[in-house]
């Protein structure tokens, strides 16, 4: 067993883990942070995407010991707590996925939002094509992606402070 310490969504955790333990299983099974999902075993689907030190990673491809000393951000820490109006505390991406119907079953959504957040950090005003290619490591089986692309661009506009214009595509 190996000691790890990391900051997850603003809380510090110290645990003894097997060296082979995947970060996603550390989050889910040790910390009980089940907001981050597992959708495959080959790093193709991106359902498990979280941020490690500010960059998106597939947490099924990172060992917990590799994240030792790191800052982890998951979907669970994205919204600001607002007991009066939950949606007012949402991140613009969470709000835009809701308003643009960028989710159906919602299983890919946490990973999709965390990947999109990283994309917008790098490129605050992506074209439709840039969103599509920026999210190619995240699979959704429900939406056909049109409304995900719309949601990411809507959120980008809000984050830039632009007038929201969701018109995407032809």
């Amino acid at each position, binding site marked *: 067993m190996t000691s790890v310490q990391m900051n997850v969504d603003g809380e510090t955790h110290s645990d003894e883990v097997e060296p082979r333990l995947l970060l996603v299983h550390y989050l*889910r099974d040790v910390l009980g942070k089940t907001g981050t999902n597992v959708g495959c075993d080959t790093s193709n689907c991106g359902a498990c995407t979280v941020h490690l030190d500010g960059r998106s990673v597939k947490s099924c491809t990172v060992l917990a010991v590799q994240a030792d000393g790191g800052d982890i951000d998951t979907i669970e820490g994205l919204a600001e707590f607002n007991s009066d109006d939950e949606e007012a505390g949402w991140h613009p991406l*969470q709000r835009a996925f809701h308003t643009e*119907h960028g*989710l159906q079953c*919602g299983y890919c959504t946490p990973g999709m939002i965390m990947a999109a957040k990283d994309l917008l950090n790098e490129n605050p005003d992506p074209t439709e094509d840039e*969103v*599509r290619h920026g999210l190619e490591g995240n699979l959704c089986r*429900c939406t056909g992606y049109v409304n995900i692309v719309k949601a990411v661009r809507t959120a980008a506009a809000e984050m830039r402070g632009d007038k929201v214009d969701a018109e995407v595509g032809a």
Partner: protein
Amino acid sequence: MTALDTPPSTNVGVTKLRKEDAHLVTGRTTWTDNITLTGMLHVALVRSPMAHAKVTNVDVSAALEQPGVVAAFSGADLADNWAGGLPCAWPVTPDMKSPTHLPLATDEVRYVGDAVAVVVARTRYQAADATEHVVVDYEPLPAVVDMEAALADGSPLADTSLDSNKSFTWQKIDGEIDDAFDGAAHVTTRRFINQRLIPTAIEPRSVVCAPPRETRETTLWSATQVPHILRLMLALTCGVPEHELRVVAPDVGGGFGSKLNVYAEEAICLVLARKLGKPVKWTETRSEGYQATIHGRDQIQDVSLAFNEDHTIRGMKVELHADMGAYLQLVTPGVPILGAFMYNAIYKMDALSFTCHGVFTNKTPTDAYRGAGRPEATYAIERLIDEAANELGVEPFELREKNWIKHEEFPYMTVAGIEYDSGNYEAATAKAKEIFGYDELRAEQAQRRDSGDPVQLGIGISTFTEMCGLAPSRVLGSLSYGAGGWEHASVRMLPSGKVEVITGTSPHGQGHVTSWSQIAADALGVPYEDVEVRHGDTNVAHKGMDTYGSRSLVVGGYAVQVACDKVVAKAKKVAAHLLEAAEDDIEFSGGTFSVSGSPDANTSIQDISLAVFAAHDYPEDMEPSLDSDATVDPENFSYPHGTHLCATEVDTETGRVTIRSYVAVDDVGKVINPQIVEGQVHGGLAQGIAQALYEEAVYDAEGNLTTGSLLDYYVPSAADLPHFTTDRTETPATSNPLGVKGVGEAGTIASTPAVINAVVDALRHLGVNDMPMPASPRNVWEALQAASNGGAA
């Protein structure tokens, strides 16, 4: 808020943002794998690495010595725990063969992934580790992989207990089929391969089972589309009294048919939890699921279309070979049979002959995958009509229009013997062509052909219809299906005026909570926010037929409407009593009951709900309750239709296909929530396009699944798919009071032939008349090479 402030009909037909989303975008979810119970153990299965073998010995003793292992069992160890095999609920013919399907194989394994032993340990890692220590002795048997070879004399058997690999032959002949083909002016004949697909819901399957504690109740959570069907079938399979079994479908992450089943792991977890007295959990890995969760499609389609001199269709012959895989799962044999009614599609003809051979192979069982039989049929007819148009030298739309049912001919009894209630193919086509810019694209196509552009443009058409909203129970009975197609809803009026709707449908992404709230809010005249919808737990929604076959709105939504109507009828009696008026004089609008001619004499449905709760003053001839149940059985299927147009650019040097534009005009009747409907179409399109361009489950000659993970089985990402332009026409269904038709599968059914027709259309002038799916660069390039070498591609 008084009821007078609530205008009528403010919810149905307008986009309401989904009530489901808040917990999904914040990660506060309850997927089955998120459930952790005190003392819970983890289950891992040992699966056959061979497609077909005798199992001569299973030794779990070394696994029992591994860290954290609590128990381990072979198939033989658990054999006495099954009251029966896993069920097939659709014996399509009286003589259909269905091998016994035990959850854990005992003496013979029949596909790679067939489970032979199970290990139970304290953690998921320990359970997975210990499976490596289970020793299984296999004696290899020949694997049956090819459907047609499987039916040849002397073929090895996929199951040694059978005397042939044929499960059944199902035939339906309508009209004088020989007359239709004898003397036909033209016959177009083709063989199409509808390749095997893997549904790939993004949430893997998962099961948690808790044994009885303070009561006799066993609770099973499963990532399932069908908690009600599962409860009954597990009770029968495992010998657990039905009333002592509770099944819960918590948050479920997509299904597309793959979670419409009764799986070995569900039965195994139920038995293990009860045997060990501990909660257990099993969650598939994706690669495991690719072997152990059903596949879809996998049909060889031999089809012919006979024409008169004037290009009207005389009749159609269909002969199918449908790969069942190694076992018949819940509705495996019924899937191709659902297609039997759809080959004639939107076209008029005098005769239709349909023959289907269900064939066993040593592969993962097939079953319902989004569309289930109708995508295959639609692909065949829409491809064939294009090929016929080419052979007859007419424009593909011209041939379609000459033969399709005209809007004034509805309701229309088809050659297959079902009545299409409504539709307008002319309107959908006109709208689609206009949005698409059909004539301009044809002009560009001609120009590119003339200039010899290495990137050619193709235009693909799909004028589809389908039958969904499963289904009229009597029709299902006539097709030997094991259950009915009704649906149930309960509406409970709470004393505070709030409303609980209980539905027998079981959503896994479709937004039933939102749409059912819209229906109930308008029917009862209460605010949308005041309605809660409960589902997916057999202790809460005690009765239901669940979610598949684009049935939830047309049958389940219909049940909600009828239950609400019953509430209003009861409330009206109470209103008449309280307002001291005759019931006939009471009017109901927007949640308010008023006396005709005396609008000031009124009361709200909320006030009546409270009055009935207090029960101090109510009519003597009724019970003090507004709560109502409805179980509705649809009188007909629902027949959505539409015209889809796809423009593809095909690089003749590399074989790469790019979708340049895709226009879908769908007619799904009345719409409850336009945003949700559009989302359903989008997702359907993605899966149909994926079949056309990207996906194929491939087995080698030994029966190994060579596309065994997401590395090899190509599920398209956002970068692989285009923007979709969607629009609608609206001819209301006449078979339900909401006027709605199903929408969950329409996009998938329509889009596959639209894309392949576009690819062939791009290359037709180069001699390409067929295109195997998926139209990968390699398949396209090879088709081009074959054509340029003078062969018929």
